[in-house]
């Protein structure tokens, strides 16, 4: 565990150091560039030339330079033209980008931290919701399948077709939403609902991008493989409840946030599966951040961290982009550290239990 923590912290430090170094280099370059430009501008400003577009002033400047450098008329004329042209280009460029060019100031940094706090709240909420949703959907599917297999009443003929037809359209719609990229769903309902709220963001990030369905299916696969292990049959031989029929595992127990299935073999299957699932939470969190970033960027809502990153990328304000990148990287790393700590604790707990004859691992 110590080694893992060390690795996480060293990579966090490594990336932070690199990004801060890039930030510093960019800052120095920016200052050097500004200083260079200022010298040129000052050199021109020191001359009695109020407008570069005024033909009289241009001619006057050329005459003055010719007096300073006699006998080089062509050369000085070309130099003055080039300097004036450059000054015009610089002026036009500064006018164009004056409203978009930004530097990283303390005020701006605090503003970004505010956006980051919002991002973090949404991220934690969605992670908690998907963590709960994945386990609930996976468990519900597993229990329902087992209960159906026990009841041994497969539907045939008309009953099957009628059921498929009744469930077909809602099922197809549900699948369409679950697999849709969040921006497709958001744009689909934008005319009828306010999609710019944090609530809607949480809803989209939880339901869409395939996150919930992919990981609930993974959880279901873990449950299925775990249920085939030897200890399940041993538990059954020892008369532990193993039936899934006649509401042996009620829906209320499945929907509970902290699931417990005491006295049923499924309790052990679930506990062991949850342990396996924990290892994929890191992957799920990374995918969730991807989905969240895409959703925030695609919806173009001002005041959100990812949209801000996209905007600053467009305006080439790379110092702000780097800070946002660093914040996102810190989020990922902190999640990885927390998951590793949780996994370590769980495995310690399981090992202790195993030694006292508890849940089989």
């Amino acid at each position, binding site marked *: 565990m110590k080694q893992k923590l060390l690795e996480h912290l060293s990579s966090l430090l490594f990336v932070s150091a690199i990004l801060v170094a890039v930030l510093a280099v960019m800052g120095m370059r920016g200052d050097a560039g500004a200083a260079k430009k200022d010298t040129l501008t000052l050199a021109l400003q020191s001359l009695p030339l109020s407008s570069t577009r005024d033909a009289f002033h241009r001619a006057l400047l050329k005459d003055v330079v010719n007096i300073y450098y006699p006998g080089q008329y062509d050369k000085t004329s070309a130099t003055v033209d080039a300097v004036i042209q450059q000054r015009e280009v610089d002026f036009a460029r500064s006018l164009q980008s004056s409203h978009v060019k930004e530097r990283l100031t303390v005020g701006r940094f605090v503003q970004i931290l505010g956006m980051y706090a919002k991002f973090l709240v949404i991220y934690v909420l969605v992670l908690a919701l998907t963590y709960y949703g994945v386990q609930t959907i996976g468990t519900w599917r597993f229990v329902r399948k087992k209960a159906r297999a026990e009841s041994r009443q497969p539907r045939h003929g008309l009953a099957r077709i009628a059921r498929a037809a009744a469930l077909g359209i809602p099922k197809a719609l549900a699948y369409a939403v679950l697999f849709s990229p969040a921006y497709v769903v958001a744009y*689909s309902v934008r005319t009828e609902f306010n999609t710019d709220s944090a609530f809607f963001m949480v809803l989209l990030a939880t339901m869409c991008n395939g996150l919930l369905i992919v990981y609930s299916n993974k959880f279901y696969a873990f449950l299925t493989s775990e249920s085939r292990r030897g200890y399940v049959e041993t538990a059954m031989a020892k008369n532990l409840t193993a039936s899934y029929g006649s509401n042996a595992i009620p829906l209320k127990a499945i929907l509970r946030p902290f699931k417990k299935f005491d006295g049923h073999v499924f309790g052990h299957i679930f506990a062991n599966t949850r342990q396996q699932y924990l290892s994929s939470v890191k992957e799920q969190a990374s995918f969730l951040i991807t989905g969240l*970033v*895409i959703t925030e960027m695609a919806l173009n809502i001002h005041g959100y961290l990812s949209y801000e990153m996209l905007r600053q*990328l*467009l305006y080439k304000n790379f110092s702000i982009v780097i800070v946002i990148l660093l914040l996102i990287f810190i989020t990922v790393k902190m999640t990885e550290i927390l998951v590793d700590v949780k996994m370590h604790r769980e495995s310690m707990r399981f090992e202790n239990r195993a030694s006292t004859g508890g849940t089989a691992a």
Partner: protein
Amino acid sequence: MIHTRRTLSRDTLWLIVWLSGIAALAVWDTLFLNRPALKLLIGGFVNTFCVALMVIVVTLALGWATTILLHSLEKRKSRIGYLIATFVLNLVRSVPQVVGILIGYVWIAFMIQDGTLRNQFAVFTVMACCMSLFIFLELVDLMRERILHYQRLDFYNALLVCGVSERRIVNFDILWKNSRIHIFNKLISIFGMAVFLQCSIDFVISVGLSTDVSSVNLPPTLGSLLANIDSKQDILAIGYTLTHPGYVGNLFMGHLQGISIAFVIVFTLLSVYQVANGYAERHRL
């Protein structure tokens, strides 16, 4: 392995469903969608799937090479080399895919503007490399898991004793002969992931970076076509239909461009997911 099933397996069934769905859409669009939009849609579809296929090839090459590199570093007991390699890989793993790819795409757009990248094939290749860089670790994990699994079995040591080189055991006996089904299954999922990421990034770039790094620079894909103002209006019409159900008929006639693009994306993601799951089920992975 079960190869002689009489009924269609789930993966084959979903592959047929996907092909039929796309074919039905193609017929419908040929009949009712205007020519320029149809041409754009076909171009976007082909480009998207070409890049996704290239992602698979690059990911496979990158994943295989990295697995072998890690394995040989581990075997040579080159502790420092192994630590550096895993440190770098874990670092890449910690970068959210979309952020890494977005930066890669902006870089590609600048290269196009500079004239460094000139033809479409080069653009596609660099795009695929960018995406693969943030996806290939999933394949590396799988391959390393398979090698580790077989190293614990007797046949690994038995082959070594028989004089078979370790390189051949890992590359041929473990990865090719005994893991290619697992690898193929992973590649199917990666295909879906590549389509999702590519469409999303192109959508984001086209919507958010519409002035400097516009979709004019990058080859059109389903994502950038969806970000098109016409397509967005078509998608917005779905919301209108929710409160005015009588409008539903217009979706399939008047708003065909956006609806078709959204359908292709969502239907492909769903089908790829089902194919991958069906394949895993069929081969009991």
